[in-house]
Structures are given as C-alpha cells and as structure tokens.
C-alpha cells in the first residue's frame, strides 16, 4: 500500500518564538484512520493546518500522494484544499444562511461545477451520512450531531483523498460522538479515504487504526496500534 502522507522534519515556529512543531516526521498509509493525540498545545491543530495547506511550516516537507506540497505556491495550496483535502472542525462551522444541502454543495462552487452537479453530489453525500431527509433544513434546525454529519458530508463532497478532522466530537455527547466516529470509520473503509483525526479522548482514539502522539511539538510515538485496528486487521 503506498503512503498517503509523508511528513519529514516538519517544524513550525511562530513569530513570537513559540515552537509549535519540532522535527516532526511520520508516514500515513492511504486509507488509514489515524488519531492525532496529545495534550492541549502539543501542536496537533498546527500540524493539521499545515497538512491541509492552511498554514505553512518553517522547515520540513509534506508529501501527499506523490506530490510534495509547495507552501510558497498559493495556487497549489488552493488546489490542495479544493481537490485533495477535506476539513471537519470541532465547531461544525456551517454557514447559517445556507441549508444543509447548500452547505454541502458550497465547496463545489469554487470548483467550477454547475448547480445541478453540485446539488446532485451534495445530495449523495447527505444520504451517505444519513441526512437525505434533512437537506432543506438550516443549521439552526439541526442537532449538534446532525450538523457535524453535514460538515463531514461537506468535507467529502470534493472527493478528497485525505480528511483532516480537528476534534470533530469536542462539542458532542459521548453517544453522538461514538456515532460520528462510526460514521467516519464507515466512510473511511467504504471510500478508502485517509482520515487524520485530532482528539484527546482516548476512548474515541480506539476507533482509529493507529495513533500518533505529540508532546511539546515533537512526535512521541507514531505506531500505537489501537485495539480497534488490531480487530480490523483480524477481520480483513
């Protein structure tokens, strides 16, 4: 199996001197479901932002698939965010003036798709996350779990090879959190999409194949295979 992400010697130092990441290196295989764990301030979100082309490293390289990400090329970063990466955020971050269907279709607007194509693909994604009947509802008419499902559908609508989720269940109760992780895991397996999920809830990390643990901006471990992962391999 070819690697999906290869991070080599990645460092990030902010202007105020804070070193968020220091010489971070790891690989993630295509189709893996990886949990990024670590205490608050350990550099998880910074790492996710850099992987998604929202932020740039001070040094080091990131390869996604066969492409080395050029952080000086703004157009390449926009293309990365449009075509390669999907984001899921803790706060759901749906646009309140748009319906669930329109929220999911929103990223395709910037990818030159016609309205008909956008809506068809968005509807498909909503059905995938079990919200086909809630397409016309607005965010404030949906529960937290439903909003996060819409956000997951939005992250997937551009058919990315990598989904980056930053504490996607941080605002949800444990039952709903479990449902969201189950959904992401289902999508991960069904669509062979790589997931990197930031979490500090160890019980949720158990849904993942592997955990990468960060501490003070450094990788503490990259190979903690979870029980779920072991189970999954046995099932395969």
């Amino acid at each position, binding site marked *: 199996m070819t690697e999906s992400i290869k991070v080599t010697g990645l460092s990030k130092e902010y202007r105020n001197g804070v070193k968020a990441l220091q010489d971070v290196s790891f690989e993630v295989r295509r189709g893996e479901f990886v949990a990024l764990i670590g205490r608050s301030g350990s550099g998880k*979100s910074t790492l996710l*932002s850099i992987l*998604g082309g*929202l*932020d740039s490293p001070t040094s080091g390289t990131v390869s996604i698939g066969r492409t080395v990400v050029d952080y000086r090329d*703004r*157009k390449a970063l*926009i293309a990365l*965010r*449009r*075509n390669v990466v*999907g*984001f899921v*955020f803790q*706060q759901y*971050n749906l*646009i*309140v*003036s*748009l319906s669930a269907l329109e929220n999911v279709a*929103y*990223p395709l*607007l*910037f*990818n*030159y798709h*016609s*309205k008909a194509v956008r809506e068809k693909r968005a509807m498909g994604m909503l059905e995938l996350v079990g919200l086909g009947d809630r397409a016309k509802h607005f965010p404030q008419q949906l529960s937290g779990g439903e909003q996060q499902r819409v956000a997951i559908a*939005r992250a997937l609508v*551009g058919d990315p090879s990598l989904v980056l989720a930053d504490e996607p269940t941080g605002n949800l109760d444990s039952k709903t959190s479990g449902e969201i992780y189950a959904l992401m895991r289902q999508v991960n397996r069904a669509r062979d999409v790589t997931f990197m999920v930031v979490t500090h809830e160890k019980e949720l990390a158990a849904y993942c194949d592997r955990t990468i643990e960060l501490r003070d901006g450094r990788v503490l471990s990259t190979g903690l295979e979870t029980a779920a992962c072991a189970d999954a391999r046995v099932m395969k």
Partner: protein
Amino acid sequence: MIVGRYVDYLGLSARQLFTKRLRVLLTVLGIAIGVAAVIGIVAIGDGIREQAIQAIEAQSDLSLVEVHPDTQDGITQLITDARVDDIRSMDHVLAAAPAIRDNYATKKQTYLDVVAMNGPDFEQVLKPQYLHGEGMSPGTNEVVFGHDLRDTLQRVEGIRIGEGFDIVVRDYNESGYPVDTGHRLNATGSLTVRNDQFDRLLIMDLATAMTFRDDEAGYSSVFVRVDSADNVFGVAEQVKSLGLTATGAFEQIKAVNNFMDMVVMIFTLFAVFALLVGGLMIMTTMITSVFERTREIGITMAIGASEGDVVRLVMYECLLIGVMGGILGDLFGLGFATVVNTFGKPYVVASLGDQFAGIFGEQIAVVSPGLMLIGLAIAVVFSLGAGIYPAVKATRLNPVDAIRGT
C-alpha cells in the same frame, strides 16, 4: 457555466444580505438618498435649462449671427469683401449681408441707430416681415424702421410710414470741428416685432449710406443666416478661425448653459457629500459583515475558495447594495421630480406672480432615462468603491486564526 457561477455568487450574496436585512435596508436608504439628491438637483437644473432655452428660442432669431471685426495680437481684422466671400462659403451658411453701422440724428435730435445693407441681402438674411408698408428699393433714400423705432419716431417726431423726414449726419473736418450735412429719407415700411436689435434700428440701403460718408474702412459687420439653430455654434467657431467674432442670440443659450452647469455642479457637490455618507455606510456595513463572518470566511478559504473568490463574494454584496440603492434612488428622484412638477409651479406662480407663469413650462424638473442610468451607475460605483477595503481585509484573514475565532 461561468455565467451560472456568477449567478450563484449573486444568489449567495443576496442570501447573506437577507440575514442582515435591517442594516442593509438602512445602508440602501443612505445610498438612495444620495442618488435621489443628485437626480433631483440635475433634474431641476435640466428643467430650468430646458425652459430657459425654449424661452430664448421662442423669442429670438437663433439662426441669425452678426460677425464683427476683431483685434488679435494687436492686428485688427477688418471685414472686407474677401472676408464676406469667405463667410458665404462656410458650411451651413445660407446667406450673408455685409453692413455699415452709423448714427444719425433727426432735426429734433432723436438719435438713430442705423444699419445699412443691400436690399436683396437684407431680404435674404433677415427675412423681414412688414407691419406697415414695404421694403426699400436699392440705390434710393428709402428706409425701414424697426418696430420700436417706428413707435418712437411716430410718437416723438410725428414721422409716419410713407412720409419723408430729414436727418443730420455729423462728420468732423481736418481741424476736428463737426460738420453736419442734411439728408432726406423716406420711411417706406416698418417691421413686425422681432425681439432683437432690429426692433430699434433704422435699416437703409448700403450704397446710399456710403454716399453720406467717404471714410469707411471695410464693413462694420456682416449679418449671417445659418441653416439651423443647431449649426450656429459651428459657424461661430469658423468665424472665430478667421480672426473675427460672432454674436447673436445663441450666446444667451451658451450663457444659460454655462450658468446652469456651474449651478448644477455646485449643488451636485453637496449631493456628492450625501453619496459619500452612503458610501461610508456601505463600508461600515461590509467591514462589520466581514468581522462578523471572520470564521465563515476562514471556512470558505479552507474548503477551497481563492482570495479572488472571497473578494467576489464581498463585492457581489456591495454590487447588490449599489443596484438596490440606485434603483431606489431613481424612484426617489422620480418622486421628487413629480412632487416639484405638481406643486412647485403653482407655488412659484403664487409667490412671484402670474407674470412668472410662463417661465416654467409643463415641467420644472426633468428626469431623463439617461439621468436615471447615471444615478444607478453612481450608486454602483460608490458601492463597489466602498467594498474594496472590506473585501481586501477579508482576503488578509489567516484562515487558521479565522476558524479559531482569534
């Protein structure tokens, strides 16, 4: 597909505006008031200008131009026969009548302003209409009175059409002493009212007038008939290029235009202040909008929007505000013009008296489709201008900070 995408942007922008409709409504009103102020001022200015020009056209012989000698760079350009031929060959010139101007006096010392022209030239250029009698014959002492002059001479001197009368031509000898010579003229006709200088002139035969004096150097002026009032300004320019000057009723139109341009410009400046306030309101609205939507803009960039896409989203909102403000401003302007036209004229007449009823025709304020388009364009330009800073500010947001809300 590209058009569809822009329609989608517009749709999204409209949705965004709808979410803050009260604020948007107030902003649109601000722009609309500015546009209405511009439209109202220009409409009244155009209305007054139109009425004034119509009044001048109704009362004046606009296609008649008088050409005079002029001095440029210390050289006086006299009107010679060659110059007259030049003028006759100009585009749009139908006829030209060279003339000598002089002053005579009656025996009772009524001073007469005299213009002497060839009879056929006079008929061709002036197209005179006679109230009494008929025109003068060439090479005779026959004269024609302007309308007002006939009244004066009849009242003061008892001179009647069809009768002869004596005049005195004063000249000066080499020692500088005045030498008066007497002549007898025959009043053969008088003109109808023309509302120009000919009402006060005595018109006589050119050759006869030249025998009264022997020291004329060129003609005093040339009366020129132009094919239409619209071409008078062009002919005046051609005359100017010969080093001569042209005067006539057309100058009143020029003066009215210059005056109204100045008045409208000054008042428009005040209206522009109103528009600037509207523009600042848009800027405030959009800056607030961008601030409130920091996270949303961050998300939009995170899911693949380029900086250009973010600029477009903000600018489309400004475009919509501008279009709404422009249309509303046009409607306000039309309403204002209607009110002025309905109630303004009776008020003017009531305030100034019935003699002013004719100053304004049907409309005091004239709102043309072109003016409404300009009003709309001003609103859109101001709105887009006001949106540039917020749009650029939105693109400067760091998506990571925006999403975190820091």
